[in-house]
């Protein structure tokens, strides 16, 4: 699945390049197993993706302004528990998300190195009745080419899947609060500011399916600082409003589920309206358009 603008933690998964898909598609095994129902009935789920973007904005904060970004991601999920009580399910996910830059913060920048960001995360997800879920995620955001200092964060997310009540009109709302920790001045913070920040995001993800086998989603979200998350580098003033984002994402399956899992191609366009601090980081531009295309798989 495409995760434009990095609410990546829960989402993604790994990347295998286009050539891999082509190789798979050309093998006899691919054809032989076209009718395979569920190749992986066990308790582990592997997901992955490889996306290409013209711009990388992390919660509204610009990360590059030349070249393009490539996002390989991989996620391993463990379905630890399922039941009929108050707690319906428990899962553990861990994975990695990466951003490779060809532009000014990557291979064309001072470091001369492509690998701008590598994140590691672990999530404990709990599912309850009525489609509600609560998850806790620890993430370490690191920069192999020293483009920024390591940011450590704990995030809590409450989500509601209202598909059961609203069907195709479901909006799937969520709210997430993230706290940076282990920081110092200009160290360990997404904004490079003076104090550890507290971030809040509210979003919706309405979608439609069955459009000639493709699905389309329209994620909408707003990112805000509850405390010191969007500190202005010049004034030090914290800006509450970080960004507003609306996107359209089309996902088309690459054939049926086979013994290699379910593969898809996806692409989309995202529009971001920025707050004062994020506008400053964006070179004075108050908005940004991001396009992306990628491959994904789930197994």
């Amino acid at each position, binding site marked *: 699945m495409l995760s434009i603008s990095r609410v990546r933690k829960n989402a993604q998964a*790994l990347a*295998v390049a286009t050539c*891999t898909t082509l*190789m*798979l598609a050309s*093998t*006899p*095994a691919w054809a032989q*197993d076209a009718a*395979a129902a569920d*190749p*992986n*009935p*066990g*308790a*582990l789920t*592997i997901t992955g993706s490889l996306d290409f973007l013209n711009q990388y904005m992390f919660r509204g904060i610009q990360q590059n302004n030349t070249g393009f970004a490539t996002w390989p991601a*991989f996620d*391993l999920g*463990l*379905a*630890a*528990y*399922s*039941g009929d009580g108050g707690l319906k399910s*428990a899962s*553990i996910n861990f994975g990695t998300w990466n951003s490779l830059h060809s532009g000014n913060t990557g291979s064309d920048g001072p470091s001369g190195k492509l*690998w701008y960001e*590598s994140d590691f995360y*672990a999530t404990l997800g709990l599912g309850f009745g009525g489609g509600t879920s609560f998850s806790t995620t620890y993430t370490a955001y*690191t920069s*192999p080419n*020293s483009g920024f200092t*390591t940011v450590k964060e704990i995030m809590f997310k409450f989500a509601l899947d209202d598909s059961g009540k609203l069907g195709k009109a479901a909006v799937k709302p969520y709210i997430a609060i993230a706290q940076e920790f282990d920081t110092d001045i200009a160290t360990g913070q997404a904004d490079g500011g003076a104090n550890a920040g507290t971030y809040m995001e509210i979003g919706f993800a309405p979608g439609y399916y069955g459009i000639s086998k493709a699905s389309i989603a329209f994620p909408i979200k707003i990112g805000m600082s509850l405390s010191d998350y969007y500190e202005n580098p010049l004034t030090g003033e914290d800006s509450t409003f970080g960004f507003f984002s609306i996107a359209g994402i089309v996902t088309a399956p690459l054939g049926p589920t*086979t*013994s*290699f*899992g379910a593969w898809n191609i996806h692409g989309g366009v995202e529009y971001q309206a920025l707050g004062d601090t994020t506008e400053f980081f964006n070179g004075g531009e108050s908005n940004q358009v991001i396009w992306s295309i990628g491959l994904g798989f789930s*197994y």
Partner: protein
Amino acid sequence: MQRSRTAVQWLSVCALTVLVSAATASPARAQGSTDPNPGALTLSGGFDFANAYFFRGIFQDDTGVVMWPYGDLGFALHSGDGALKSVSLNIGTWNSLHTGDAGSNGPSGKLWYESDFYAGASFGFGKSTTVGVTYTVYTSPNQMFGTVKELSFKVAVDDTGLLGAAALKPYALLAQELDGQADGGANEGTYLEFGIGPGFSLSKMSVTVPVKVGLSLSDYYEGISGDETFGFLSVAGVVTVPFTSAPTRFGSWNIHGGVEFLMLGDRNEAVFGDSSHVIGSIGIGLSY
């Protein structure tokens, strides 16, 4: 893992142990013990701890704790009864985290010393012979060495069918550096490794005794007196204990540990300051 970086295989990460314990203790686990993953993708991985890290006999670090998280995703592309028995594709990553001089306690102040990515294809033929080709990029996130790109070829024979418990499982590995160098020398090197991996199984564990020798065919072990052919000899003992007797819904997990004895060539001895070293390790592994 490719990159026979050590004959020894290693042990467990506390966090993963907790995670696995929690997972295997859940009701879901008891529900099934048949193959949880009959599809064409295979996941393997692990997290090991070691007291030192030598890459093909070249000293990297022996201070603090060395941790090796790794993961591999395999695609079984073909299997058949013809001359070509199987074709598989593997991609993966191998990492080395250091608390000592090469990591968080060193000049970089950063833990993540090495991160490798590889992609390889393997072809199985008759008489249990396998030929593989692998492209690997060795990178250092904490900038302690320059990126090395390498292409390697490996031929392996599983002689278990002929020799049974006395099988040696010999292999030969030839690697050519394309850009960057493991020895930090003047020229890209060519590396040759021969090894065997005899082993046996006991009631609830398996033991392997990998032996290997690393050689420079050209400029792989460059020192002050030029290139040295002999890089290292390694003999190890590795014990692997599975968590369960059969795969669970979470796959097959194991705990493993071992000891490796390294005897170094003159060039590697000069860099390390000693002619030999003993490496201990312990780790947790997953196959799904």
